[in-house]
């Protein structure tokens, strides 16, 4: 059973910081997307996503990130994704071309 956790680390008037930990694949991607999107209110100016604790992500998970990037671009909300070099998500994000749509850190 694949399990992931979506946790709001910090929230102020303009910015939310959310960490996704665990694993994301087709079996839980819908739940992860629902939890993630529900944690983002439309008044925010910046969304920071911390993927350092994500040990597995496949194309189903990437679809969530592309969807998020697309929605936030429409809302004129900044999207930053933190995925340390060498982490499971970093390589996948770079291969997919998502790094051209979001600010990838560090």
């Amino acid at each position, binding site marked *: 059973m694949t399990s992931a956790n979506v946790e709001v680390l910090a929230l102020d008037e303009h910015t939310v910081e959310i960490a996704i930990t665990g694993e994301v694949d087709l079996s839980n991607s819908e739940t992860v997307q629902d939890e*993630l999107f529900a944690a983002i209110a*439309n008044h925010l100016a910046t969304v920071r996503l911390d993927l350092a604790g994500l040990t597995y992500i496949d194309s189903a998970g990437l679809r969530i990130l592309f969807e998020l990037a697309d*929605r936030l671009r*429409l809302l004129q909300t900044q999207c930053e994704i933190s995925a340390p070099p060498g982490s499971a998500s970093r390589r996948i994000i770079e291969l997919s071309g998502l790094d051209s749509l979001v600010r990838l850190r560090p």
Partner: protein
Amino acid sequence: MLRIMPSSVDSDSAADRLRRIEAVTDTTLAHLDAAQLLNELLVRVRDLLAADTATVLLLDRSGQQLIASAASGIEEEVRQGVRIAVGEGFAGHIAATRQPLMIQQVGPTTVVNPLLWEKGITSLAGVPLLAGGELIGVLHIGTLAPRPFTEQDVQLLQVVGDRLALATHSRLSRAERAAASALQRNLLPTRLPHVPGLELSARYAPGEAGGVGGDWYDVFTLPSGWLCVAMGDVVGRGLPAATVMSRLRTTVRSYALDSADPGEVLSKVDQHVRHFEPQTMSTIAYAMWEPSLDRMHLSLAGHLAPVLIVPGEPASVLDVPVDPPVGVGSTPVRRRVATIDVPAGSTVLFYTDGLVERRHRTLDDGLRLLRESARAGSTELLCSTVMSRLVGADPTDDDIAVLAVRRQDTGELGAITLVFPAVPEVLADIRATLRRWLPSVGTSPDDIADLLVVIGEAGSNVIEHAYGPAGGELTVALRSHGRDVFATISDSGRWRPPRGTHRGRGTQLMEQLTDELRVEHGPDGTTVHIRRRLTGGE
């Protein structure tokens, strides 16, 4: 399970042969499904003939390749998807000659499949699989030790082969019929698109001659607001016709996106079919409605002309030019387009030849009956009436497709409410709907242009400000009263403060272009109320 000692191979007494034949025709096998039967028979035939491997290769659709489909003792053949060209090597030779073949010493010159000699097979015997006189594949067995196969061995192998051929053939044709009808069900839109201002109904009935035919229809709108209707009849039946039909439908849609000229669309479809589907011929009627729905542009590729039903007038088969079907001839033809006025309240009825062609009556009689049966009004009733009058309880050889498109009366359009997902792509849909609806309530071109901007701005605000990334709904309601048009644009989100570079300008525009503009923010969402006094006709 019946166990036969390999030693029995040496004996050829009549009783023994009978016992061996029973081993592969025994009734317990009847309880197995086709795939299990295949594997069980391969295991038994190895036992009976003391063989180390047994393989079934089935002929693919092209008739040019044998594909390893079941194997015992050399399962990797199936896992690796081994393919042998008909005419080549051992199995290929059996397929080409339809005769049994034996080889005592396997080598690269007689056997093309490297798996066989890598495995150490030295002797092979094989028979063709024939069902109803048609080749469907090859069955062969192999032994590691050199072995002269006898005439009796080959006869027994052929008994197994016949059994296999029968089971496989019926499984393949069942699977094909199921696939063809699944494909057809998927392709024909069960729910026709909801287009404000239009009423749509359709019927499809498969022919009795067995399985689905090649009739298809499609209704879709373009981002430009044009409405497209296609109906076609691919020559052929079953899975081949259904797969061609599915590709043809996609081809029509692709070219439809690129052109506002139905003749050009059909010319490109024709070119496409002649190049990529050389064995295919199809009739197509392809029509495009202007966003106002006032006029339909129609091109016919060998298809029967639709029937136009104007209220208060006798129904008529449209007198329009017919060009050849797509996929015939070697040179493209110039395709003609007829422009048909479609008054409010009128219906256009598309159909395939199965509806009007019967063995016991002429085409003209069929068309006359169709004209007499067709009445203006509800399209559901029209489809039912036409099917009942022209088909009734008669069995039909050919399949039948019927599609009725009615332009609603202005009176029926008094008020409309549309619910969209709040995403940018729906803005074009909203404009297309407005372009159809506004003229029906007496707006001038200036009114239309202004209202498109006002409602577009209000819709954009909802899409941009009302919801977070999870999104939500955008509802547009329109009604007219006297010389006023009222519109409400509402959502169930919470608006955030304006942001970005273009903000503020939209609101200013909306105020300038309306007679009344009111925004109600509430805990359950926001509604923008718009009133606009019409200038048209003043």
